[in-house]
């Protein structure tokens, strides 16, 4: 596969390490009510769609950016690639 890195352009997926669903960005608040349940859902449950999937890839043999890749799990077609840091910020994550 080829991932179009937002900074570096097309790169072979072999340079990357895969983590999983991009929802892993949305780490719950440790002080929230039912934090254990929230963490359980966050860590263990997956949509696992057959179709478009937003997922985290790490450019390990590269610039060490974490990327959010939108990829179709039926065809492997990739429709968008973003820097995970930007996605995290856009989802309200900060410090």
């Amino acid at each position, binding site marked *: 596969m*080829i991932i179009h890195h937002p900074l570096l352009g097309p790169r072979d997926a072999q340079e990357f390490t895969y983590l999983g669903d991009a929802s892993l960005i949305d780490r719950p608040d*440790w002080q929230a009510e039912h934090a254990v349940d929230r963490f359980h859902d966050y860590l263990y449950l997956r949509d696992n769609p057959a179709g478009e999937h937003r997922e*985290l890839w790490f450019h390990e043999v590269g610039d060490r950016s*974490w990327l959010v890749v939108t990829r179709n799990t039926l*065809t492997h077609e990739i429709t968008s690639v973003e820097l995970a840091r930007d996605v995290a*910020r856009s989802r309200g994550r900060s410090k």
Partner: protein
Amino acid sequence: MTQSNRLEGGQIDRSRSFDFTFDGKRFKGHPGDTLASALMANGVRLMGRSFKYHRPRGVLSAGSEEPNALVELRSGARQEPNTRATTAELFDGLEAKSQNRWPSLRFDAMAINDRFSNFLTAGFYYKTFMWPAAFWEKLYEPMIRKAAGLGSLSLQDDPDAYDKGFLHCDLLIVGGGPSGLAAALTAGRAGARVILADEDFAFGGRLNAETFTLGDASGPDWVAATVEELRSLPNVRCMSRTTVIGGFDHGIHGAVERVSDHLATPAPGKPRQILWRIYARRTLLCAGAIERPIAFANNDRPGIMLGGAMRAYANRWAATPAQKVAVFTNNDDGHRTAIDLIAKGVRVAAVIDVRADAPRLADCELLAGAQVIDTDGRLGLNFIKLRLADGSERTIECGALGVSGGWNPNVHLTCHQRGRPVWNEAIAAFVPGTLPQGQSVAGAATGDFSTYAVLRSGTDQAVVALSDIGLEAKAIDLPQAEDAPVNLTPFWHVAEGKGRAWLDQQNDVTVKDVKLAHQENFRSVEHLKRYTTLGMATDQGKTSNMGGLAIMAELAGKTIPGVGTTIFRPPYTPVAMGTLGGRSRGQHFHPVRETPSHKWAKEQGAVFIETGNWLRAQWFPRPGETTWRESVDREVRAVRGSVGVCDVTTLGKIDVQGTDAAEFLNRIYANAFAKLPVGKTRYGLMLREDGIAMDDGTTARLAEDHFVMTTTTANAVTVYRHMEFARQCLWPDMDVQLISTTEAWAQYAVAGPNSRKLLQRIVDPEFDISNEGFPFMACGEITVCGGLRARLFRISFSGELAFEIAVPTRYGDALIRRIMAAGEEFAVVPYGTEALGVMRIEKGHAAGNELNGTTTALNLGMGRMVSKKKDAIGSTLSEREGLNQEDALALVGFRPKVAEEKVTAGGHLMTTTGPVDAAHDQGYVTSAAYSPILESYIGIGFLKRGAERMGETLRLVSPLTGTDTEVEVVSAHFVDPEGDRLRA
């Protein structure tokens, strides 16, 4: 041996001869020959035996689709089973053996199977061999296994080298026949980066096999001129002997270049084959078409072959399978075989055309509306038996029969990403359907079979493909060329005839087998394939699948596309495993990581051990020491008695900087880090988000905004990645910067009561490393040996007074020599990973065996370290009940009741009174060693409620190793439990 069946002309170099042997018999051939063409020229028709019935078989095709003519090529360690004689290029001294026969190809004892073929129908083995139960493995299966397989491996290490590489292009053209050449010329002239790949050693495809002219030139001459121009273009890479084996995601293709297979042995340092990974912006498939046979009774005798192959042998290789041949066809193209063979002076007995209205095209007898209903000849064809249009029978004597059932576009590569081909009624064949992104198809692979049409689509499709990527190209001027339409009446098998009619010649699947599969409800195309093994042989059914589908369609009352197709999967043709492995062989399977003291340790005669990719000194034997234990015991005693030095560079080191570095570490580690003072080091326990221990190590604070973290050797990469995840994805606005410095610094542990005294001779005097000036867990940047920058950490894994000292790696070798020289007075010893391991077990420190991915902080006795007052990765989920059970495992130590008895790592703990089984398991020993200090074996491990069971006697059972030892539960801190020594 004379080349009795060699004809005039052809593209072979008659000025030179090659000697070769087949089954020990000597023959001669010429450059340009394949093994098959050379054997054919020498009058050899019998080349192999089939898989199940051991039927005598000859060549069916003239290409990589060959199911029959498979040989063991070369000998010794280079023996290469199942090699297609049809693609094996002849070289001087070539050796080939037939396979799957005993004692000889002509007299094969296993041919008895053929007599019992009625019992050995599709799937018969599922219905029998069940009684008595024990006989399957003892009798039946060994029998079946012995008969299995075709050729054999030598079982010697493959002596050849393989290589890999990466290529980039605008347009990858798969296939160098007329359409591929036209496309390459189009794209090449336009300046595009082109790769033209063809599996053959000669470009030209069918132009080499036919007698067509292009404009004024003969086919081969046009090819030569075109290739010459292509080779002159710097932007075109012409790769013959290169098979594109598969199309993968996003335009990546795999291709195998056979660099040295046409040589007796590869030149020194040169690879046998290269696996290329081709990154193509666009791909044009010009893979041509493959002819298909017609099934009829006993259609598998040597001499019966595809019509197109027969004329390829005649035209390209000047060889004929027999002096008198016949042709059996359902289409006009079949007649070309007769025309061409007649032109070559071969007698063509008749053209048998199933079509009642067949045109008379060749200058020989035409039997329109006739069918071949049987054949005769034990090891090669002698007679064919016909049913004529008027219903009468006739027998014709001939040594070969060219069979033409039409052509199947070679859609293989269009389907590798699970595209399905679509049915084209006009040619009664599947043509490409939905294509993978970036791929287009031209030439015969689309179902256009005339020479002019394939040239036209080659150049036109190249223009379109390039315009897709913004490159402008012009169609080339096409020469005048043959432009005949396809005239064909679909005809798959002759219904008449008592004998078996073969579909898959290699796996011996007949029309009857398909009928039986249908009868037993194995009707889905995948069930058909799996039940009968149709198309599962080394040719993957390139010439047989269509026939099977057609017959199933007939039986099921469906159309052929209604039955479906099996899935084409890579590789297009089988690929040597060595090629896929490439350079990663033997010692170079994975890169080696050497420590800074490697060279020195080697000089000392150290024994090395793999630790991941690192090579570490395991121990340093001394003269007179006969066992590793002697060396390791000595090293441990020396450290605990005076001082030793150990290379600990392999521990991961991550430089953490930034104004939020402290808070960041506070969230990465389960224990508190925010308030670690500058100049101090702290042990940290890192959890995964699921609350399980991930890694541990010490982290030093060099400045307010600067830490150096150490990880275990094994987890250096994962921890670094995990921290980048936390930094970029969880807390993107934290001011933290990370970088690995693992191998930038050579780091040595200097341990033992005399370690300070030793280091005082290394560390420059302005740095106070006394216990007061540099207490336990201190750290700092210093200089050594007269001004070399260094880092010093007062940390201890051994439990002794100890330091770790680091200098830039290039000085690591000098430093170890200095330390050894400076320590002579204290009899300093180098120690390896074994002694390190013994001492950490004596101290009860957890390492990889304990941090096995299932242990919690609580298990490790560090439950209280997990701060509940802060957010750290893993802290929330570590609150779950399963991680806090009352009978949770706890890390404790074990000593045998009898000191000489061994403690077995991996042994399980049982009470002395209860049963010994899984249900009563109390825990297990993770690490064990002989402690020369305690003069006893010791172990550490996990025990249910371990902390409460000090002093209890347990059984340590290891039925696997045959040991059963009584052990006492003790503290894991065997040596210096109060830690006085390390604070000294």
